[in-house]
């Protein structure tokens, strides 16, 4: 059964088989991403569990034409893991009801540059980047740092961080498009 069909079954009603099948297909990718971001097994497990909660609660909102199920589920995992990471960084005296966002929400997912990308292709594209651009992108994506935090971490001016990220993503897109 296709990924899309499994999501449709979740959206149509409760279907533990569909939930179990989706877990089996994507737990490795989701947990690997969560581990890479949180660098903590317990936090990564929380992120994956929260991501699955987001998946089945939002199955009906999945837009098949926009991104693959894999992309969608990894985007949700990334969102949850970064949120956990940022929560851990902040020291909050009390919960702030005005901030934070619903675990039920899922991030906007940009359309795939390609649905046929594999790990080696993406790594190859990353490796074409100058080290400073790669670092800026990785600090943002895998560590959840903001522009200001990246500037502080790397010692680069804000404007330089902005340029590095933009140029790095442009370069990656160019390489990945050529792979299609």
């Amino acid at each position, binding site marked *: 059964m296709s990924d899309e069909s499994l999501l449709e079954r979740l959206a149509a009603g409760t279907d533990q088989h569909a939930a179990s099948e989706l877990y089996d297909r994507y737990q490795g990718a989701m*947990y690997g991403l969560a581990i890479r971001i949180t660098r903590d097994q317990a936090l990564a497990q929380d992120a994956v569990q929260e991501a699955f909660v987001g998946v089945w609660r939002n199955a009906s909102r999945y837009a098949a034409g926009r991104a693959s199920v894999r992309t969608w589920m*990894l985007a949700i995992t990334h969102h949850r893991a970064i949120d956990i990471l940022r929560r851990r960084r902040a020291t909050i005296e009390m*919960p702030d009801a*005005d901030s934070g966002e619903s*675990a039920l929400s899922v991030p906007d997912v940009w359309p795939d540059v390609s649905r046929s990308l594999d790990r080696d292709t993406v790594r190859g594209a990353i490796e074409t980047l100058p080290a400073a651009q790669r670092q800026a992108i990785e600090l943002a994506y895998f560590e959840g740092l903001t522009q200001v935090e990246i500037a502080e971490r790397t010692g680069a001016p804000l404007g330089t961080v902005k340029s590095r990220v933009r140029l790095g993503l442009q370069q990656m897109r160019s390489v990945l498009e050529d792979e299609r």
Partner: protein
Amino acid sequence: MSDDIRNLPGGISCADVSELAGLYVLDALEPAEAERIAAHLAACPEPHPEMAELGAVVPALALSVDEVDAPADLKRRVLESYDRYAMATAPTAGVASAAVAAPRPAPAPDASAPVAPWRIEDQQPARRGSALPQWLGWVAAGAAVLVLAVVSVWALGIQQRANLETQRAETMAAALETLAQPGSSFAVLEGLGPAAGVGGFVAFSPQGEGYMVMTNVPEAPAGMTYQAWYVVDGQPASAGTMSADAEGFVIAEGLPAVEGTDVMAITLEPVGGSAEPTSDPIVVGEMVTRA
């Protein structure tokens, strides 16, 4: 700032938006700046194809990571969480008789042993995996009436779905009545981490009678129990221990109101409860007083 700037969509120029596109699609801007760009994109008559062009690269970054098999136990946790979700959202849920231990009174303060301030650190308001509607997360805390309406609708749904046995149905009805009462105070409870699927509320009448309702509550680990806490100026005081029924429902009554409670929190504690929390909260909710 000139009038020209103020007249720009979102107060930011197209050129600046383009410059910031990479950081925007990576969610690496400060919130205020991200909001300005979102406002610009919503209002600008000019197309901004750079957003989709750069944004398309972002999902690919996840593919660069090696897959790692999750611990076998995680699948059990995830599917248990799914089962609770399925149970709570089924059009006609099965019998959900609550089995809640009567809350124990808070231990008497011991002046000789002052309790260290208990900080709820690193905890955003739960909002994740809650059984409450997603859009509740968008409701400002100050909009107490709207929050109340949202919680009431959610709770009524629970009441209608659940085939509660008579006594629990009456308790649930009383909890809803308290929630709707002018002058009542309440907190929306939402779970964190392993309790991500938990949702519910606490409501206190102006007379100080309190109720707690939660759904999707996982069974406490062996030797452990759930314990609720009033948090007043960072200091926790016990509100009693409780357990969920087989369907993950907690419907408790008899909670006395404690003046000055800012937050209600729930921790896992050794069976019998603790005089002070021994672990971080897994469910929290900020108290709001209804006008």
